[in-house]
């Protein structure tokens, strides 16, 4: 199983977050963690999600990136994920 962390900037429009989650589910990625914060002006959501799947992470990234509401999408470096896991295990 591949675990990956994604960071997205999403226009804060009708159903945008549901759309992101729907694509994630339909492409057979399991959601492990989700955080979405509206930007100060309320126009965007900054979304961080951790997902798990047998499939390559780039396939989900590409599907999310082409959504009309998604203005930026990137996979955070695996190293960042490992650092977070270590930090968590050390209570950081």
């Amino acid at each position, binding site marked *: 199983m591949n675990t990956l962390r994604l960071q997205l900037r999403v226009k804060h429009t009708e*159903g945008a977050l549901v759309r992101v989650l*729907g694509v994630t589910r*339909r492409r057979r990625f399991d959601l492990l963690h989700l955080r979405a914060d509206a930007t100060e002006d309320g126009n965007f959501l900054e979304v961080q999600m951790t997902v798990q799947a047998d499939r390559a992470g780039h396939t989900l990234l*590409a599907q999310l990136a082409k959504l009309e509401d998604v203005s930026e999408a990137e996979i955070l470096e695996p190293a960042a994920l490992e650092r977070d896991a270590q930090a968590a295990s050390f209570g950081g």
Partner: protein
Amino acid sequence: MKGAQFLVKALEQEGVEVIFGYPGGAIMPVYDALIDSKIRHILVRHEQAAALAADGYARASGKVGVCMATSGPGATNLVTGIANAYMDSVPVVAITGQVATSLMGTDAFQEVDIFGITLPVVKHSFLVRTASELPEIVHEAFRIARSGRPGPVLIDLPKDIANTIADYEFDGTTKADGSAAPGKEAIARALKLLRASERPVAYVGGGVGMANALNELKTFIETTGIPAVATLKGLGAIPTKHDLALGMMGMHGSKAANHAVQESDLLVCIGARFDDRATGRLNAFAPHAKVVHMDVDAAEISKLRHAEAPVAGDLRDSLRALASPLEIEPWRRKCVAMKKANAWDYNAPGTDVYAPDFLKRLSERAGENCIVACDVGQHQMWVAQHFHFNNPAQHLTSGGLGTMGFGLPAAIGAQFAFPDATVINVSGDGSIMMNLQEFATLRRYDLPIKVVLFDNSALGMVRQWQELFHDRRYSEVDLSDNPDFALVAQSMGLTSFRVDRREDVDSAIDQLLAARGPVLAHVIIHQEANVWPIVGPGKSNSEMMDEVTL
């Protein structure tokens, strides 16, 4: 101006000439506004047919198809058609009425969350929350539907907003966003693979037609000499009769096409997506080949098969950049010989009408530019195998979703796009019943659509699978209690006749093509007629089953 009036004005600005729809409570303001518009509304008899007709209109014309329905059941009846357009990347704008905003979320009469229901099957969607948003939403919907990889867009319009009076303004019309050109490095990688290849095959999909890249594809194929195979939706991108067109690949593909792909050392995928019906068992597909994958949708590249040379961007640019001569003459000759050696054999035993032969003869006589809209099942595969196409827009077929009932509404859409064209709906006795009510639409508008109904008193494709892969354990495929379709059609205003002997085929085709109004040929075929060859479930495309006697 009311919101509904602005909506109609905006549709006019977008060049919409025809809307397929069905009125009802929540969409009434828009229907009221349509009375004063030059846009022609086509009243179908079921909302599903409205969406499928819009789809057929878009496929045939290359324009955005528009359909409309009221809230609740009107909207849910559109869903299959919207999903059909989504799966085959067809530009459609679907407009649904919605209950007033004050009632939304209260389980009001005919309230349904169509925005939520359609989320997985639209390219994008809008729920109009305020009247001020309406101008931007309408034009965005058209821009999105037709840009890049096309697709359906939904606009859900609450009734109170449709009735809101405001100053709506929008300057001009929208155009599709231009697709980005491929990167130089990507082209260089692809060229390197092409020049190193000894047995390349072009794997041509529906994206070529949608990108208006037919000329570029022809130049690419003829300059490089690469033999081409087509997906169901790619048929006609290279004319069927072209020497280098090896036919359809995949489950019911031609032997020449499947063998060429399996032997290839380089697969040049052009606007296709490695669909399972095309590839057979994926890990045994083109096992010796590296892949150059050109597509406007970067998400399709390396989704199912790793591409050594990914080429994202406008297909026209990519094909132009890659069109240079290759030293592959022995391979080219081998493929042309394979095509010749595996040509279809139309000498079937018996006296029943042989559907492949009927379709070949019809194809030869229906004119170079006729449009064929199929339903789904055996007849659909026979059309793909035996009809000759010069352009993918001539072949309207539900490839991705496989929607039984697609053909008749799609033919209606195509006939409105091209009123003078010969439009043929090839259907089966299962599929025709899915949207039979649209015979009434043929009569209402006196559409000269020619319906060829192959009747084997069964759900033929399912029956074939049960015969071949379920030990002849037939389950719910018998349709021997079918109505007399010729009589049904006659009662709904079509000319109709029955064909049940092979010797009558030529005169039947004469009668069909000579008819001035809507006409149905009810063609009886043998119940055990099967589609050959076939690649069984889970099998490689190397393992084609040819005609078997069980």
